[in-house]
């Protein structure tokens, strides 16, 4: 069976017309939910994600509490209608794994020692999935933590790089994700020039990995700017009395 799908066109552009190093249009907003202590909305192409923070608050169950630092609990979850075929609403193994890697990425930048014995709850809800949901979810979660005023050494900005028809591309879309040779989700703490989330699914040589990380860095720098702008917008009008 030969697929008629052309992922990289003759002129080097992608299935949706982007250049290999071009991101999808991204939109971010902080403080979008009323009840959460911090919240954010991130959209990258058709991927739409809400994140909310509760805490720091007392850890439950109590035996989870750490005497010298806070713990982060994270739930990454996809809405049943977020994908083409309805997903059963329970937590899949994939969602458990992604919750873990998102939690650990956030633990890398939050000053957890400021809140001994407490828990910071992070909820990531994927409303619509079009690839790159773990990285966009982490981007949203770190924005929500900043919105909640929790001290962090840096924000986390993440993007998925892929190898599609032999070409490395930035910010995979679902059409590309389905047929890619490799999927490389990367999240950075940009100011610390460090990686906070790194996974690979698929075949890649060491040189391709190196090039892929450079490409990812380009994307995360861009997202980092958008995160900072979203926070500025959120707090610039704070305290203004309506006319």
């Amino acid at each position, binding site marked *: 069976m030969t697929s008629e799908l052309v992922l990289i066109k003759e002129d080097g552009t992608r299935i949706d017309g982007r250049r290999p190093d071009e991101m999808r249009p991204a939109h971010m907003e902080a403080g979008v939910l009323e009840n959460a202590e911090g919240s954010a909305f991130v959209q990258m192409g058709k991927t739409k994600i809400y994140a909310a923070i509760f805490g720091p608050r007392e850890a439950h169950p109590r035996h989870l509490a750490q005497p010298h630092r806070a713990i982060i609990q994270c739930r990454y979850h996809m809405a049943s209608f977020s994908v083409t075929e309805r997903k059963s609403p329970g937590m899949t193994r994939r969602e458990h794994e992604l919750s873990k890697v998102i939690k650990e990425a956030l633990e*890398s930048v939050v000053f957890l020692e400021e809140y001994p014995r407490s828990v910071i709850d992070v909820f990531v809800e994927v409303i619509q999935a079009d690839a790159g949901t773990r990285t966009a979810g982490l981007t949203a979660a770190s924005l929500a933590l900043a919105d909640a005023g929790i001290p962090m050494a840096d924000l986390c900005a993440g993007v998925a790089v892929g190898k599609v028809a032999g070409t490395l591309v930035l910010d995979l879309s679902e059409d590309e994700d389905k047929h890619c040779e490799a999927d490389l989700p990367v999240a950075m703490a940009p100011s610390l*020039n*460090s990686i906070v989330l790194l996974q690979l699914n698929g075949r890649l040589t060491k040189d391709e990995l190196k090039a892929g990380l450079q490409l990812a860095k380009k994307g995360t720098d861009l997202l980092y700017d958008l995160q900072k702008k979203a926070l500025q917008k959120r707090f610039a009008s704070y305290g203004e009395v309506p006319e």
Partner: protein
Amino acid sequence: MYRLGEKPYPTQIVQQKLYELISSGRRIDGRAPNQHRPVKVEVDVVQKAEGSAMVSMGGTKVIAGVKFDLGLPYPDTPDKGNLTVNAELLPLASASFEPGPPDERAIELSRFVDRCLRESQALRLDRLALIPGQKVGVVYVDVYVLDYDGNYFAPAVLAATAAIATARVQRHEVRNGVLARVEGEEVPLPVVKLPTAVMMGVLRERVIVDPNALEEAALETSVVMGWGTDDELAAIQKNTPGLLPMEVLEEIVEVSRTIASRLRRTLRESIGDRWSEPKE
């Protein structure tokens, strides 16, 4: 203000000691920074399984078993067999592993082993489609961590690979469109590569291979690198919190590649003529 990622004082003391040792090219157990612990691979340890392997890497022991069955293909891959990988951290292995459904660490391990086997295309699932769209081979790989002294990822992948590479399954034949057993005949699974994985630990700007439990608790972060062949990565998992500086990545890739190839040679020597590289 605290330093980011500061550990409790006793761990900080261990961290400092480990760092001093690594900086002078040594480890707490006498190894060099880029040296893994002694590896032993034993296959056919469970006769009732179609394939099995017990792997020890220092004080960490992992057993993997393969069972084979026939079943329906997944709707999105009608012309491919199925691969199902499961891993469990048995309560025998460590005081920190509890009985019950797999926790996030066990799920992460299953999914990492799965990616190493699947993404490397080590197991040719297309050759397991006995009657495409109707009857396909189903390969179950179950991995159990029996004893834990750090880094269960590398021995788990090694055991899973050894088990599928040496497995012998019931031969079936299609006769007039119907699947029939060929009694008394067993065939190997279509395994064309031997994926291996290496766990790399990071302490400040220093990198170590295959941390033991003491080192694991004191590391700043770690990442597991799965190599399908000597030149091609199949899976990566940054599996603990902490900052991974961009500057150490090149060293992680180079060292893990060398060690993964060495583990692959060890595996080949251990399984001998039970597996041979396909000539294509």
